[in-house]
């Protein structure tokens, strides 16, 4: 950087002529949106022309108060923390272990495994989201397998029941036992369950017993998928699984690249001194990579908080907003229905603050427990 006193001279003009274009672009595309976001979050802007239209003014911290009093915000934050926890304590350790296994050639064809684990990263996020959405859908393969298993179990029970009754011998006792097997929810489908089901079964007289059993399975075997996805506490599980599957490979590559920089002789020396593979990993590789791990954790945390497209494509935050994360919560307020830009900007700034706090924690952890990377 030139001396401050010389900035007035020709050198100074040359300096500014070179710096100013980049600096202006930075102000325009980085600083201006950030400042505008802060301004909007404390404003009462309600749509229409932003500059030169209807005047809008200062509204204080109203939007922030609304964010913190909204249960949907806390639900989205909780889901984001699940993703952060999974990223830091799932993707990073797994990526590290896989990288170590490949680096130390503890498996055959390490190049192949490296490729297989990295492949999900090179597929479009939207494609991955739609792919897994199909897999987890009520008509998808998982539902198909689960429904078939449930059906097989119910069918064998029905066959045993009819065998014990000596075939198509329908009485109230048999009908009651079928209803017991079906569970209480099925009772709601009838006004008077026993006689109505009996009539239905009797209408199959003359038809093969297998047809009746098949149709009773259609009627009573519960479908698997919605039951699974409806529970708020476990609806995130498929999403978390996909995130783990998709991004672990990226950390594997990061760790592997840095492991390859470690002097192989150090590892050999440790092995000659009798260190096991586990001890080499714990006492040689791990301290040497602590800086990489911290940087990866920062990447994981910021990526987790800003993740959007995968979950948007996979669940859209549904069903009933149980898989909503902060970015989707912000998007819904910014673009769905009547847009509320002050609220959406307040959410985005809260996300930034949370991100800084988590990164600060990571830095502290590194200072406290980390080693020195050569």
């Amino acid at each position, binding site marked *: 950087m030139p001396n401050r006193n010389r900035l007035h001279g020709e050198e100074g003009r040359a300096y500014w002529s070179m710096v100013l274009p980049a600096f202006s672009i930075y102000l325009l595309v980085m600083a201006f949106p950030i400042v505008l976001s802060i301004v909007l979050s404390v404003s009462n802007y309600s*749509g229409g*022309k932003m500059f030169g239209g209807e005047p809008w003014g200062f509204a204080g911290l109203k939007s922030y108060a609304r964010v913190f009093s909204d249960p949907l915000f806390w639900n989205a934050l909780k889901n984001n923390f699940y993703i952060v926890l999974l990223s830091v304590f799932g993707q990073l350790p797994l990526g590290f272990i896989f990288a170590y296994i490949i680096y130390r050639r503890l498996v055959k064809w390490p190049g192949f495994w490296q490729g297989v684990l990295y492949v999900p990263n090179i597929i479009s996020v939207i494609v991955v989201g739609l792919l897994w959405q199909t897999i987890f859908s009520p008509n998808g393969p998982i539902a198909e397998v689960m429904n078939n298993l449930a059906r097989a179990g119910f069918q064998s029970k029905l066959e045993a029941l009819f065998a014990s009754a000596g075939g198509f011998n329908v009485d109230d006792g048999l009908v009651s036992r079928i209803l017991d097997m079906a569970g209480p929810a099925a009772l709601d489908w009838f006004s008077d369950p026993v006689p109505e089901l009996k009539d*239905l079964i009797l209408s199959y007289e003359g038809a093969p017993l297998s047809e009746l059993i098949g149709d009773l399975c259609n009627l009573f075997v519960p479908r698997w998928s919605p039951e699974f996805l*409806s529970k708020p506490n476990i609806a995130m599980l498929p999403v978390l699984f996909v995130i783990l599957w998709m991004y672990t490979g990226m950390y594997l590559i990061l760790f592997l690249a840095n492991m390859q920089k470690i002097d192989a002789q150090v590892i050999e020396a440790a092995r000659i001194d009798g260190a096991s593979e586990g001890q080499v990993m714990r006492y040689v590789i791990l301290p040497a990579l602590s800086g990489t791990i911290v940087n990866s954790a920062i990447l994981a945390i910021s990526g987790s908080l800003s993740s959007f497209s995968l979950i948007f494509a996979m669940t859209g935050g549904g069903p009933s907003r149980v898989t909503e994360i902060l970015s989707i919560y912000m998007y819904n307020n910014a673009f769905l229905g009547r847009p509320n830009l002050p609220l959406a900007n307040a959410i985005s700034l809260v996300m930034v603050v949370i991100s800084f706090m988590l990164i600060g924690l990571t830095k502290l952890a590194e200072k406290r427990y980390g080693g020195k990377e050569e």
Partner: protein
Amino acid sequence: MKRMIAAILLIAVAAVGGFAQEKVTLTVMNYQQADQAGYPEDVKIWQDFQAANPDITLNIEVLFNDPYHQKLQAYAAAGTMPDVFYVWPGARSAVIHEKKLAKDLNQLLGSAYLKDFSASATNPANQLGGYMAMLPQSFTYTSVMYVNTKLLADNGFKPPKTYADLKKMVPKLKAKGIAVAMLPNKDAWPMQSCLFSTVVGRMAGDEFLDAVLAGKAKFTDKPFVAALEVIQNLYKDGILSREDVQIGYGEAAGMFASGKAAIYIDGDWRAGAYITDKASGKALISPAAQDKDFALMPFPSIPGEKNRGVVSAVAGTGWAVSASIPAGSAKEKAATRLIQYLYSNDVQAIRFNTGAYVPTRKGVKADVEPLVAKVPVFYAENPKTCYVIDGVLDPAVYNVINDGLIAIGLGTKTAAQVAAETQAAYESWLASK
């Protein structure tokens, strides 16, 4: 000599420039989906206008669904609204109406032109801003039961007239692997728009929603809770399947056509999904089957309803002209010419023919397939209408209802809980105003 030639050329250029028509460029935002039936016809509509009006250049941007609304919102914020754009009469295009970003078409088109449209279309009270920001192309019934009468007859049933008729079908149809009724609700709005609004109209009536908006009633009051309970019972009684909550709006039409359900609940606009696609020549339901095997019906009568037979309906979408175009300018004249073309008898007949909607323009004739022809008959047979909830409530409130209806479908919330959440959202929205 050179000077003379130059002078002659100058005079010639000035003369040509003076006599030539002023060329106007209009920016247009069109709402279309390229893989939707009717898209090739839409492209031709614009090409025909362009060919017949060489003095107007159209710069058309085509988007669909949320990206359309987001971009229009961004244009509104930047103060660069397109000259002609597609809008909703209600809260979906709230900014356009409330900030008066569109010209009053009543003044622009004039009463002589508007007399050819139905009264519901030209009534400013049907639009959020209380003025005619757009001209609805249709008056839409948002709740129609598409009934596969053949499938019902094959299983020994007649089209249902009461809730009990529906319930009676459950064991037998379920045993055959057929859902009694299907209403895909993964996208959250279909249940509210295509069934719940009608149920509220039947159980509580428009006067109840008016009373809520006037602060004289609450969503936690009995009529609204009873309406939510009807939806709860539809799932509990097995008439609707809980897995419908996981089915996307676009997937369900094909499932119904393939016989996976005896009844499909949607808006009248969905008739267009079943007719012959002009590009491929294929139809989800053949015209012959549309004619004899399918019927359009209102939702059957519900125990405890106070307004028998009402069906939710709302003014449909339409075109608007940017308020920023100077009055009396060549651009305003060009935009007016375009609007008049889009609402012309010929263009409306094409839209009617593709099953997009039944036009609000009077006397439009088209050679439509049987299912589309049944739509105006449905209107005539069901003249009593009620509010569509997302047409009268703010998104901050109706989004909570949408989510609540999904939760009811999943069995994770009760009617009373959803009613309480709706009231809380309403009070919070009131406080934020």
